[in-house]
């Protein structure tokens, strides 16, 4: 620190830290922000950004195209609804995003045995999964809601009266809420499956297989039910298998009118609501239990 020792750069002595120390909430927030960045490959090499950036672009393309179509068409009608937003595409893209990026948040720390370093710091056990969960929910919100906002902005710029803008905004809000439900439910399940293995390939496989398998099974059964194989009852309850169909069932149960990937559940809507809670508890509770068990040092 003194001038005469400046000649030797590497020997300026040890400096102790007198500044402020942040508390547990701020540390958790810092971990959440760090995890959110890694969900999109920031702070990693260029290769880590390929999948998140590509999936994000694919999610946004329909919104941008729609905005252009709206601008060019004579009646300025929006071709895509906010609350379903091309379900098939959205589901596919989100599964790819979750399978690729959820392991980045949880699996790599397991693989490199970094967890003891976190637990040896002034946070509690539950803070780690909580921060990861919050980060992945935000990441999924970015993936889901930003295309909706692009679509909204593309539409309202073509509108001329305040009442039309208000009407458009009223249509957007349920879409955003559906997106929030998707993000919360999917984030917990994706992180839980990704945290099963420290091996990235296995973690990715677990996430992809869980979401694809349940979705395929659910859709096949719905189709059989609709063709009269098991009656309307089968078609209505087959949607309880997959998180995606459950989300769509809940949307329709709560008053969503756009046609979705499951038939309107009607009286069985409560079951969809119940199943939503089950998936939520399994995802979030399972994740917390997972990190309660994990060994330290």
């Amino acid at each position, binding site marked *: 620190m003194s001038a005469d020792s400046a000649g030797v750069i*590497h020997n300026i*002595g*040890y*400096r*102790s*830290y007198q*500044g*402020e*120390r*942040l*508390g*547990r909430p*701020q*540390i958790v927030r*810092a*971990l959440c922000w*760090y995890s959110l960045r890694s969900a999109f490959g920031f*702070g*990693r*090499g260029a290769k*880590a950004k390929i999948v998140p950036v590509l999936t994000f672009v694919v999610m946004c393309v329909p919104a941008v195209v729609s905005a252009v179509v709206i601008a060019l068409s004579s009646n300025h009608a929006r071709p895509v609804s906010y609350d379903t937003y091309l379900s098939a595409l959205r589901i596919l893209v989100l599964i790819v995003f979750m399978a690729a990026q959820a392991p980045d948040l949880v699996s*790599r*720390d397991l*693989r*490199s*045995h*970094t967890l*003891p*370093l*976190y*637990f*040896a*710091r*002034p*946070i*509690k056990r539950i803070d780690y999964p909580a921060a990861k969960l919050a980060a992945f929910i935000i990441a999924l919100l970015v993936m889901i809601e930003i295309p909706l906002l692009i679509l909204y902005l593309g539409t309202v710029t073509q509108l001329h009266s305040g009442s039309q803008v208000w009407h458009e905004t009223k249509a957007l809000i349920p879409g955003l809420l559906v997106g929030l439900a998707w993000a919360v439910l999917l984030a917990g399940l994706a992180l839980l499956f990704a945290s099963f293995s420290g091996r990235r390939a296995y973690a990715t496989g677990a996430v992809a297989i869980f979401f694809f398998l349940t979705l395929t099974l659910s859709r096949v059964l719905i189709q059989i039910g609709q063709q009269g194989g098991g009656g309307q009852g089968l078609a209505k309850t087959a949607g309880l298998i997959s998180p995606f169909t459950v989300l769509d069932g809940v949307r329709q149960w709560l008053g969503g009118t756009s046609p979705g990937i499951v038939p309107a559940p009607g009286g069985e809507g409560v079951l969809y609501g119940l199943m939503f809670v089950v998936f939520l508890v399994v995802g979030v509770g399972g994740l917390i239990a997972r990190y309660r068990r994990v060994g*330290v*040092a």
Partner: protein
Amino acid sequence: MTPDGRAAKVDTVTNAQQPVIAAGKLTKRYQGSVLALDELTVAIPAGVTALVGANGAGKSTLIKILLGLLPATSGTATVLGYDCATDGSAIRTHTGYMPEHDCLPSDISATEFVTHLGRMSGLPATAAKERAADSLRHVGLYEERYRSMGTYSTGMKQRVKLAQALVGDPRLLLLDEPTNGLDPAGRSAMLDLITRIGSEFGISILVASHLLGEIEQICDHLVALDGGRLLRADTISAITRSSEFLLIEVDEGSELLAAELDRRGLAPVGYQRGLLVQLADDADHDTVRDVLADLALPVNRLEQRRHRLEELFSDVGSEAVAYEAKGAADVRG
């Protein structure tokens, strides 16, 4: 911090007599009734302390309890004046921990990793960056700290592990087998580093190791565990004082020498190509000199050696047993 917390902190700093780590009848029984710590009572003062014992002696269990990560079955433990059972968070704010095993992700740089863990220690963003750079420089990582850690040698990885323990400006470091996997040059560099942190940085250090031989060179105190019990806790000088040996090698007349030394009560044992005698005090030096002069033997080597502490503990701390067992083994070999 609460006013109480601050008061406790001041106490530990001003009162040098107060132990950095204290355990009272500390017991840890794992499920399945494995007894990892058995009524361990020990007080560790400021400075560099070795925590030695074979694998399974309870070293890692003790460290986990001290960090407040594992509840003790019974007994008490305090670190820096904080109670391990209730103030784990405060302990972890002021304690750096270097685990035994590999714990570094391979795809990010040391700078980024240590900065992140600095933030996890509660440093604001700018301070974390500065202290990460400082810590990495202190452990001797320069340009390579911007490279991803997957490309690092074992020695460099150990340095990063030490740097991440230092980044939060701890008052105590818990190092678990810091020389694991290092070559001799790497070992001595790591030991020098630990010595420097202890003396120049003024940070108290507890070093867990099963290699007594190397750890004794750098420590002020030693705590030896065996099967979860305290075997011995003392200053290094007190322990080594009773373990000085003289190796005598003569070109011829070795048997004659052995007989004469034996007659004068020095109980020599064969060691390598010479004889090993334990020195209790200065008079024993004179005895050896006199015997060699009286017998007029051609002396080849006369070497004072500190018997490796390891051997002192190889048989429940019985120095004589270890010493004789070693000698007997060498004679047979």
